[in-house]
């Protein structure tokens, strides 16, 4: 087991909670219970400090100065890249491209790699449980290129239906784009198996790891992922920064995404040549401060150990599933077996609409997500238009789950008055 997985700091939830200033806030006079982690996580003071330290001590532009501050800013920016690359076990740091978020990473691949490599008569395979960010770019591309967009279905059990995978992935499949963990169902998908299938027909696999990288040890080499996308803001880091991992040779062969400063090697009045990786994909002044703070977020998770993070969330998920399923009027979408899912639990109350439940829980200090969770076709396939969702992270506790269960019961009492 590597250092990343094992961790160097004891997994002590009280000590972890003390690192998150926002957790001492009161919401509507109640202690905050933050269960909207799948939307974005809270930030520890180490990450916030990395941001203020940068602006107070180091601020300068990168890659273009010989002065001390510029050199320090460049070093910090590149060190953070090395950290995120190592975090997902990328063979080389240049394979980690900074983007704005998962959505931009996905759009980058659609606009560059897919624009060149996908054509008429080919097909792209996605799944029925994708986030809109991993549906719409492919719909657009498919329409533009006269390419077929195929779906692997989600079964009623919330698991990916792979019974017909060998006919859906065929010799014309150029790309499989799949979420590692569903942001609605919590389902963990068989990425390595899909990678093997698509590689066998000469295609590539893109993994939407927005919900997996924050919560479990993810190894791009073990998965044999060609592309892998995630956002810092869901893993203790700041908003406005994300990562695209791509295999070196693929990135090298791809055209640039945007044009401008930093991404060029040489410019004449007539033409330009492209810079080396990763800069070819980082036009203009990058998000230096947030990249550095993302490095701090990775440090925080590595200190805890991703296996410990995952074990903690599995324990919470098992407990929450048991508690929620014991309620008479509630059903849970997705796999009922906690071992097959991550800490994202979407549920439907028979009589209370998710929005009314969301407002009532907010009154009790409990933050959950309500709505379609950016996965409208999936939510609709369960014959509902909206769901409530509780999602967990390192600072959550069983007593907070008790508060949620109690909050649901209080809400039932309120609406039957």
């Amino acid at each position: 087991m590597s250092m990343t997985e094992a961790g160097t700091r004891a997994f002590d939830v009280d000590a972890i909670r003390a690192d998150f200033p926002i957790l001492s806030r009161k919401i509507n006079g109640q202690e905050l219970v933050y269960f909207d982690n799948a939307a974005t996580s809270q930030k520890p003071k180490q990450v916030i400090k990395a941001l203020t330290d940068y602006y107070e001590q180091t601020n300068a532009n990168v890659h273009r100065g010989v002065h001390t501050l510029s050199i320090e800013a460049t070093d910090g920016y590149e060190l953070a890249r090395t950290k995120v690359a190592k975090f997902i076990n990328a063979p080389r740091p240049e394979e980690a491209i900074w983007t704005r978020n998962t959505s931009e990473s996905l759009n980058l691949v659609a606009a560059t790699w897919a624009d060149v490599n996908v054509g008429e008569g080919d097909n792209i395979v996605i799944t029925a449980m994708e986030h809109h960010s991993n549906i719409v770019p492919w719909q657009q591309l498919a329409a533009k290129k006269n390419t077929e967009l195929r779906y692997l279905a989600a079964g009623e059990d919330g698991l990916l239906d792979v019974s017909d995978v060998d006919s859906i992935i065929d010799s014309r499949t150029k790309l499989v784009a799949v979420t590692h963990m569903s942001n609605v169902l919590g389902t963990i998908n068989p990425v390595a198996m899909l990678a093997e299938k698509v590689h066998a027909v000469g295609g590539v696999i893109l993994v939407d790891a927005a919900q997996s990288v924050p919560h479990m040890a993810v190894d791009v080499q073990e998965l044999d992922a060609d592309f892998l996308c995630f956002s810092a803001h869901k893993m203790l880091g700041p908003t406005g920064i994300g990562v695209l991992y791509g295999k070196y040779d693929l990135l090298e062969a791809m055209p640039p995404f945007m044009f401008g400063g930093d991404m060029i090697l040489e410019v004449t009045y007539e033409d330009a040549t492209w810079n080396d990786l990763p800069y070819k994909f980082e036009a203009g002044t990058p998000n230096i401060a947030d990249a550095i703070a993302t490095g701090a977020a990775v440090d925080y998770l590595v200190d805890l150990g991703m296996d410990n993070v995952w074990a903690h969330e599995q324990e919470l998920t098992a407990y929450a599933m048991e508690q929620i399923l014991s309620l008479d009027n509630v059903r849970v979408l997705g796999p009922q077996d906690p071992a097959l899912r991550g800490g994202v639990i979407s549920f439907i109350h028979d009589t209370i609409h998710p929005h009314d439940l969301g407002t009532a829980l907010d009154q009790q200090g409990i933050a959950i997500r309500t709505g379609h969770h950016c996965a409208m076709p999936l939510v609709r396939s369960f014959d509902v238009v909206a769901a409530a969702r509780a999602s967990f992270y390192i600072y959550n506790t069983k007593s907070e789950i008790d508060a949620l269960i109690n909050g649901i019961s209080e809400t039932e009492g309120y609406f039957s008055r």
Partner: protein
Amino acid sequence: MTGGMSGLDDMNELYEAIILDHYRSPRNTVPVDSPDIDLEVNNPFCGDEFHIQLKVDDGAVAKVGITGRGCAISQASASLLAELVEGKSSNEVHAAVDSIRRLLKGEDVTEEERDVLGDIEALEGVRKFPVRIKCALLSWVGLDDALTEHLGAEGV
């Protein structure tokens, strides 16, 4: 960890008794035969969806039927709408929608306007929950637009 019902009592303004009553037993939910106006309104953000049907006679609403699903606020609001519009002219409906918009934004609404709104005034508490204003306005705005368009097309 939480303080029980005390927190929920703060919602009483949002979920007034009249609102809960309309939510539980919505009015005018019978589909209208060969309607003049037949529209679906939805708010993809919450997943609320309503099917609004109207029979229009001489520029006034002769019959209305509203069915759908949504949260307590959007359902109660649709039911209150269904109750109000029957017999009203398009101008009267338009004026009512205008006053309810102002009511929800916390702007001035005259006593005469409040008289016209009647029970609908119960929606006023929604303004303390700004994210829920859309729920309350969903069916109103849809119907107002449809009515204007329909009468415009008829040249009334």
